[in-house]
Structure formats: C-alpha cells, structure tokens
C-alpha cells in the first residue's frame, strides 16, 4: 500500500472506533497489514503537513461539560474586521466566522464553565459593541456525529 492509499484507508477506517488499546496505532496497522511507524507517520503528515485532519481524538457530546451558546452579531460591513478581532480576544470564543447574511454577519460560539460565565461574555460583547446580538443556544441535538462519508 503506498502512502496516499494508506492515508485514504486511515481516513476511512479511523473516523470511528479508533482503538482504545495500549498501542492503538499498532492495532490499526495490524488491521491494515502495515507497520505501526507507517500509520503514525501518515497521521502526522495528514495532521501537520496536509491539514487533512484537524485532530485524532474523542468527540464529546455537546453540552456534556461547560455551557456554550451560538451567537450572531449584526455587524456593518465597514467594522466587521475590527469587531471580529474584538470578539476573538475572548478566550471563551472558540469559533468565529464571517457568514454571508444581509444582517447577521458575524457568528461565534461562546463556551464557559457555566451559564453565568457564558452569559457574562455575551453581555460584554453586546454592551461593548453596542450591536444587536442573537443568542441561539442549542435546545436539542439531532446529529450523532458518527463520522463523515469521504467521497
């Protein structure tokens, strides 16, 4: 199996059921009939060089720990950069996207240890920008996030 085949196979088989064994990369390697080093090297390249994967790890159920909230700010085009930068300075903000909507242009997720901490950040963003803020906390999650078909 060449490197690109190995990467493709790993993306396919390792999206779920990454082994909880003492040497998980070896478990995967044995399953695919390759060496443990080859698997670790392929993952390292995919993570660091190709950026094909953002990480290998556990995906936790939303809302298991901490309190988070999706929020949208109605930012005028001419102050978008500045406002995005301000929002990004909060360590509690872990996603910050510009989205092409006529009104709600800046979207971000605030996560804090508890709802009081989360709401304090949202309050500060609202007060300090003086802009309309939408608070869209998750009410129910329907997806299972069992991996994504890579075709």
């Amino acid at each position: 199996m060449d490197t690109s085949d190995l990467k493709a196979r790993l993306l396919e088989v390792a999206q779920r059921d990454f082994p909880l064994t003492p040497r998980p990369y070896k478990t995967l390697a044995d399953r695919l009939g390759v060496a443990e080093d080859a698997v670790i090297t392929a993952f390292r390249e995919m993570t660091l060089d190709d950026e094909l994967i953002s990480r290998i790890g556990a995906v936790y159920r939303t809302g298991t720990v901490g309190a988070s909230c999706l929020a949208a700010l109605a930012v005028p085009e001419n102050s978008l950069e500045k406002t995005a930068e301000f929002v990004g300075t909060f360590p509690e903000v872990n996603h910050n996207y510009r989205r092409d909507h006529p009104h709600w242009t800046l979207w971000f997720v605030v996560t804090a240890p508890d709802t009081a901490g989360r709401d304090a950040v949202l309050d500060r963003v609202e007060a300090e920008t003086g802009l309309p803020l939408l608070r869209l906390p998750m009410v129910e999650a329907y997806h299972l996030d069992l991996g994504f078909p890579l075709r």
Partner: protein
Amino acid sequence: MSTPCLLDATDRALIEATQAGLPLVPDPYGAIAADLGLAAEDVRARMSRMQAAGVIRRIGVVPNHYRLGYRANGMTVWDVDDARVMALGEAVGALPFVSHCYLRPRFPEVWPYNLFAMVHGHDRAEAEAQAAEIRALLGEACRAGEILYSTKILKKTGLRLGRAPAAGQGG
C-alpha cells in the same frame, strides 16, 4: 435532551487533556496518563466508560472538511413547525451529508429559523442540492429557509487546554 452523566474531577481533566487530540506516539493513552498522574489503564477505562455512557460520541479522526475538498460549508437554517420539528430534526440529522443538526430558539421579527443543519459540498452547487434535499424532506412543515456560507474563518481554535472544560461546536 441528553442524559446527565456524573463526571468526576479526573474525568474532566481527561476531557480537557484529550479534546485537543491524542498525541502521535505509540502509546498515546499512556502519554496522557503520565501528564495527569494516572495509570494508562485508568485513562482507557475512563474513556471507555464515557463512550458507553454517550459522553464521548466517538473516538477517531476529525476531518478537516475544507482541506478534503469540501469548499462549500453551509449552515442551513429552517423555520419548521414546532409540532413536527422533533421528528423532522432526527430525519435531517440522519442525512449522510449533514454533520451537525440542532434545534435552537427563534426570535420573532429578527430570526425566524429554529432548525440548523450544517452541510458540506465540494462547491456551492452541491451544497445547494443538499439544502434542496433537506427542504424536500421537511415538506409542508417548513415555511422558509436559507443557507449561510462561512466566507471567512476569523478564529477557529480547538478547545483550549488549561481552562475549564468545554463542549463541542454545538453551542
């Protein structure tokens, strides 16, 4: 809603230590255990327990959709009849091209949409075909919808270490 699951301080420390990713060394659980002052078997047992309880949805590769060629990542939002949204949300969340699907509050006058589903296409035409499929599935229960594409990622960090543990991107 999710079933509550009791997590102790060690579980929380473990979540913090693993959510940014497992190290690429032969014994990644052992490396995490060493950082936390635990035994490797304890780390694996706790992760296995959290997986069984549904706290961990899956352990595996988290793909970078954009780099894998999915250039059109759209947040589709829908105004769905409250009486039918639970059943329809399950159906939308089960579509193979939907990575996340959530019910969120709506705000009359400013935000009419209560159902959110993230779709991923190689280009906008593909994302729009996916949105059309969702629209068809929702049928008469859906009054309106939109796709909001992310046009710029201004900050996307993993959940940081050294702070209180955080949840996924669900918000």
